[in-house]
């Protein structure tokens, strides 16, 4: 590592500093270059094999090798280019953690620990569910977008926003938007954040509702995590304050006992009926839970559940990677399915734009910008570490997405479609559903489904939309081939369901609470007392508002005959990419103000791509003439049905509510499109003004202060 050299203004402590020019150094340098050439070649040929082989099913290892090589090359070269040339990380500059060290929020932290911390914060259910849904197009579109989108888009966004926040004492994205662009951008960013939260919470709540309906085993396990979390909360608060790891292990053991015990609950009819609910009741329970978690003391329920889910999340992701490497499964899904024509049962619409909307997390996720401008920038010891933590952790999340894609594609396509197609499309009767799916060219029989249902210990596996059940089947498939064999498939399946449901609930209660704080912040501008976070009337009111907002969309999804995922998941994708556009716009503004206009393509190209994808998707979701894609076309179709009298009198109210919901979804999509345009115009106005020298570029960075740390 480079030694501390007084007198130099820019100093890097990367592992590969400018080499000295001795003979030995030159030799080493070419050896190192050879290694990178080899990695690039292996990666390119693996990627070629993934993209071009059509004659026979490919092994998952091709995808693993291709993605890992691309990640390595991208990290080594592209992130280094951004670090050195674009944002110019400066290790002589003291970071906020050093300057403002208060022992709590601002603390210089070991970079590997911070990497784990940051990764645990950004990785959630998104990179697992999105690729599972996108697998309906075949493995290729999703895989390529996960890899390319991450290295050129998602990682760049996370890295640059982390850098920007680190230079501004850990300010939030909304605050940076306000300071660097203006009040309009700041306000739009805040609105975007609240609306993405609402849609996000609704759609992930829908995912667990669909995973738990008519599943006493899964419901029992998840229900048990609540008393387990309460127990952990009391233990952490009164018995062993702060002993997170031992408490998490205690909780983990109890949760595993609940997973195994759930099997007996499911087998005893009297007990099973206690934990068997339909989607509507589950939705109400989840809504009530979200409200409770948002107003109860954090230490009692929210925090212990978060620790438990972080612990299980890190462990399971690691286990899944080991499992895939040990089993090296063959992908049963074709590279491109017939549904690239836009008629798929899981979600409707063509590859462009819908593959890029369906997979947000894992490729590029705007929500990460909130994490990268939150806790993490206050903990970085040296500026150069932002590269590992910002760029590197997003590569890890992209890899999680790749693993989810593999887990979805190891299933026979017929089984994948039987699990993921809503009953409204393939029919509720097993014989009809399997016949429809087989007629698409993906053979499956009712007997296959019965075998699967018995193996995983469920009541039915038909139309379990939302991605979680099929991902769990894929994970159980991989795990049971490593450990335990078929006898353990049911346990593994329910472990996987518990794993997904656990951290979906964590996002749900943490999100409801954060949403409440954001809303209080916003409403506090209108009437001061509403902004007081410890004033109970305001706490209850804002919590109710947030929970009612996502609860409404959740309930609408539950009532939707097409399963709800078809309408809500694209909305979530658009909202998440909207936030990414906001983040990349702000990043571009900062680069221009830093006098780096010649490198502005680094942030502007992914931004243009996202604007194209979200605007096209938004336009199609609102105006497309196919009722399965366009909200307005669907509302029109239902209206015609009522007018023609083909709706039974008892159903008219339900159908009218569907008409209203479709129009509401259209309005929300339109609102997102308008927000994107507002932020774009507001930023572009500023870029032009600065580039044509009509406006002085004023950066709001914290002042330079030389670090007192010596090099390690």
């Amino acid at each position, binding site marked *: 590592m480079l030694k501390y050299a007084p007198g130099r203004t820019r100093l890097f402590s990367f592992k590969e500093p400018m080499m000295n020019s001795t003979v030995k150094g030159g030799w080493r340098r070419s050896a190192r270059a050879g290694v990178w050439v080899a990695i690039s070649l292996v990666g390119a040929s693996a990627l070629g094999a993934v993209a071009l082989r059509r004659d026979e099913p490919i092994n998952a290892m091709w995808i693993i090798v291709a993605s890992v090589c691309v990640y390595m090359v991208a990290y080594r070269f592209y992130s280094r280019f951004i670090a050195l040339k674009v944002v110019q990380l400066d290790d002589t500059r003291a970071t906020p953690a050093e300057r403002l060290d208060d022992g709590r929020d601002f603390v210089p932290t070991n970079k590997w620990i911070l990497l*784990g911390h940051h990764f645990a*914060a950004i*990785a959630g259910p998104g990179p697992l569910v999105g690729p599972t849904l996108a697998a309906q197009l075949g493995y290729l579109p999703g895989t390529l977008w996960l890899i390319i989108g991450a290295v050129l888009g998602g990682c760049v966004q996370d890295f640059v926003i982390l850098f920007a926040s680190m230079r501004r004492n850990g300010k*939030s994205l909304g605050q940076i938007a306000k300071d660097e662009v203006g009040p309009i951008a700041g306000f739009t960013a805040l609105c975007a954040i609240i609306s993405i939260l609402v849609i996000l919470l609704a759609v992930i709540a829908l995912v667990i509702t669909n995973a738990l309906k008519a599943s006493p085993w899964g419901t029992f396990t998840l229900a048990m995590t609540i008393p387990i979390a309460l127990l952990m909360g009391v233990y952490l608060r009164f018995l062993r304050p702060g002993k997170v790891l031992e408490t998490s292990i205690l909780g983990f053991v109890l949760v595993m006992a609940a997973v195994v015990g759930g099997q007996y609950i499911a087998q005893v009819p009297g007990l099973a009926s206690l934990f068997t609910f339909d989607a509507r009741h589950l939705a109400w329970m989840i809504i009530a839970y979200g409200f409770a978690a948002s107003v109860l003391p954090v230490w009692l329920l*929210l925090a212990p559940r978060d620790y438990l889910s972080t612990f299980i999340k890190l462990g399971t992701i690691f286990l899944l990677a080991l499992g895939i490497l040990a089993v090296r499964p063959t992908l049963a899904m074709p590279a491109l399915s017939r549904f690239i024509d836009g008629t798929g049962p899981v979600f409707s619409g063509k590859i462009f734009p819908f593959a890029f909307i369906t997979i947000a*997390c894992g490729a590029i996720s705007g929500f990460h910008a*909130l*994490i990268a401008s939150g806790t993490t920038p206050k903990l970085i010891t040296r500026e150069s570490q932002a590269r590992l933590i910002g760029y590197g952790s997003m590569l890890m999340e992209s890899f999680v997405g790749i693993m989810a894609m593999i887990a979805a594609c190891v299933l026979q396509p017929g089984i994948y479609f039987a699990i993921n197609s809503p009953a409204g499309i393939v029919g509720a009767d097993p014989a009809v559903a399997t016949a429809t799916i087989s007629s698409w060219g993906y053979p499956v029989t009712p007997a296959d489904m019965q075998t699967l249902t018995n193996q995983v210990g469920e009541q039915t596996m038909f139309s379990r939309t939302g991605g979680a059940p099929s991902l769990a089947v894929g994970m159980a498939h991989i795990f049971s081939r490593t450990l335990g064999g078929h006898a353990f498939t049911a346990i593994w399946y329910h472990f996987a369901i518990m794993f997904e449901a656990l951290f979906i609930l964590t996002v749900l209660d943490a999100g409801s609470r954060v949403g409440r704080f954001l809303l209080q912040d916003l409403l506090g501008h209108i009437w001061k007392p509403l902004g007081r976070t410890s004033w109970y009337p305001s706490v209850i009111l804002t919590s109710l508002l947030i929970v009612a907002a996502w609860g409404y969309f959740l309930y609408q999804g539950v009532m939707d005959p097409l399963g709800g995922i078809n309408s809500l998941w694209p909305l979530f994708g658009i909202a998440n990419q909207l936030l990414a556009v906001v983040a990349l716009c702000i990043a571009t503004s900062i680069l221009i103000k830093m006098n780096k206009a010649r490198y502005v393509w680094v942030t502007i190209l992914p931004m243009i791509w996202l604007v194209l994808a979200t605007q096209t998707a938004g336009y199609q979701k609102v105006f497309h003439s196919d009722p399965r894609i366009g909200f307005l076309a669907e509302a029109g179709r239902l209206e015609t049905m009522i007018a023609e009298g083909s709706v039974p009198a008892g159903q008219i109210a339900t159908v009218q509510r569907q008409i209203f919901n479709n129009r509401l979804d259209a309005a929300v999509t339109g609102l997102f499109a308008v927000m994107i345009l507002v932020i774009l115009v507001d930023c572009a106005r500023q870029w032009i003004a600065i580039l044509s020298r009509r406006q002085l570029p004023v950066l709001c960075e914290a002042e330079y202060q030389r670090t007192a740390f010596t090099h390690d």
Partner: protein
Amino acid sequence: MEIIRKWWKMLGQVMGEGEYARYCEHLRAKHPEKRIPSAGEFWVSRLNEKYSRPNRCC
């Protein structure tokens, strides 16, 4: 064994263990006049802060 212990400690720190000890150390070194909160008090105030801003992503 040493390696396991080291990884164990790291995992604990990733999950946020040792924050209280660090805070006490900071107070003793920089602000000896301030009262050191009890472990339970610190825990509650720390969590309240942590969960009032976006800290978990999709």
